[in-house]
């Protein structure tokens, strides 16, 4: 393999072989959906508890705002609750269906708030995705070393900001692939585009993100 000319962040684990979606979890989810369709309220509660992190994470990575992510997550599950009877368990995966619903709502949200995105909110920078309220709690987080924790947090903020500057078409493909571990076929099904286009968008999104971060790094240094 050729030599990479661009420096990757230190302390990051090497790229691992990606594992496909666990078939057991897919089967369990489908069983929960079947029970829910039969009128089991407890099954609906289990679905919400098992999927809300995934939906919230997807919404936050795309919007970059905890408030919007929370609202959109509630909207997604409200839509799922209303349209669950239209989902056919035999035809497709519940994960793909849920991701498609989330993506559609994200696109609607993006179109609706396109004018507002030209300006930064006064609340920008106060979002705390981990839900830690005080600065002391932030420093005394799960990490043993507070300094390393702060560095990681700053790095995450930097990457998240750069991700928000990537164009939405490329951003959603990159998020679904690299952060949600969906395979190309599922992404193509969610985005309703061919697999070749999915690969192209993912690659362009990664390159754009790397260029943005390299530029930021040069400005900082």
């Amino acid at each position, binding site marked *: 393999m050729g030599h990479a000319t661009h420096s990757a962040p230190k302390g*990051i684990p090497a790229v691992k072989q990606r594992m496909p979606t666990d078939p057991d979890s897919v089967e369990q989810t489908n069983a929960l959906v079947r029970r829910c369709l039969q009128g089991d309220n407890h099954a609906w509660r289990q679905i919400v508890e098992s999927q809300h992190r995934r939906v919230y994470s997807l919404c936050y990575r795309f919007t970059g705002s*905890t408030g919007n992510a929370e609202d959109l997550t509630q909207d997604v599950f409200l839509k799922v609750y209303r349209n669950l009877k239209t989902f056919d368990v035999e035809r497709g995966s519940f994960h793909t269906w849920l991701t498609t619903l989330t993506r559609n709502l994200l696109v609607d949200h993006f179109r609706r708030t396109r004018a507002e995105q030209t300006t930064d909110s006064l609340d920008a920078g106060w979002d705390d995705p981990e839900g830690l309220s005080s600065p002391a709690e932030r420093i005394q987080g799960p990490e043993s070393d507070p300094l390393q924790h702060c560095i990681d947090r700053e790095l995450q903020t930097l990457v998240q900001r750069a991700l928000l500057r990537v164009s939405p078409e490329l951003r959603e493909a990159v998020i679904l692939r690299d952060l949600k571990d969906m395979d190309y076929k599922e992404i193509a099904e969610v985005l309703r585009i061919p697999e070749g286009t999915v690969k192209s968008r993912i690659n362009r999104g990664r390159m754009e993100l790397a260029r943005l971060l390299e530029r930021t790094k040069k400005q900082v240094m």
Partner: protein
Amino acid sequence: MKDQDEFGARLTVPAGKSGGVSSGRIDCAAVELLWAEAAEATLEDVVSEQLCAHTAECTSCREKIGLARSGREWLLVLKQEPLVPPSDLVAKILANTADAPEAATHLPTPVMSSVPAAVRVRHEIPYRLFGLSSAENQHASIAAKSTGDHERRVSDEGPSVASPPIWQPTSVVLLRRTVLEPRLALVAAMAFFSISLTLNLMGVRLTNLHAADLEPQSMRRAVTRQYAEANARVVRYYENLRIVYEVETRVHQLRQATETSSQPTQTGGKPAKRSSNSTSDSSNDPTESHREGLAANPEAHGKQHGMRPEPKPVITGPRLDAAFQPPAWRSQSIKNWMDDASIDPVFAKQERVLGALHFPVQFAPQPFACVPITTICFSVRRISSRERRLA
């Protein structure tokens, strides 16, 4: 992977048809399809070796693959720490979706008991100003609505806590927001402006409007009066228009009669002079030649210059005269007018024809009556202007 197999089949490029790197190996176009997998290091060994051989020679592909790999490694930073959604998110979702009492029990109870009452009221003021309920009250409302003991909770909190009624967010606030919507306010203003303008044009004064005016009989009477006034105005306009063309016709006839009476005098006074100068002056003075030609043969002259000849009566007789007889009031008025003006019998006959034409016009519907009146008026004006040119 299935994708890798598909793309692996494409990698077998025949020798001599490659993009130009080296024969028997993959070209840049094929490598572009592998960038995503190459950045993830998920390629098969055979394909990976071919890619390594290509990138060792192609600097552009090597840089692009390195850039894509760098971007993916940056993204893994976000994957290290999973996001933690708010703790009450599940409870909110369940409260929104299911109406079961268990959803309300998972909502966190508002921590307001330790806050002084003055601070709590100050905290509620902005929400009350905009007709909204605060976050704590919303929690309490949702929980109380689900469990059905809203009244008991409100009574326990006491009167100092500003808790709006449970129906307020759904009815009053929504109504207030709807009414205060700028575009709806603009539509209401435009509707008010249009209605007031229409009433003003129709002559309706709201200040003069009484309850008695809204009765059916009063409204019918007002409509009838309006129609009669409008009809009288139109009839008056037509009458005035008729007077105009009658006066024009009379002036034309008087001028014609004057020319007819003065023409024999001129012809008898200077015949020799006009004939002697005709050969020399007619070529120089076009006006003079035109007058001479008109006097000699008016019909031929009119055809030569493209003008219509003077109309002649084609159908005459007593029955036609009887058909053209005007009504009694009209005959009397014409007689009086003729007596006063002492006009000649030719003009009297023409005036009788005009009266007969006007008779059906008066009883025809007003829009259709406009057409013959206007036509007659224009034709009379055209005749008079042509006569004026000839004179």
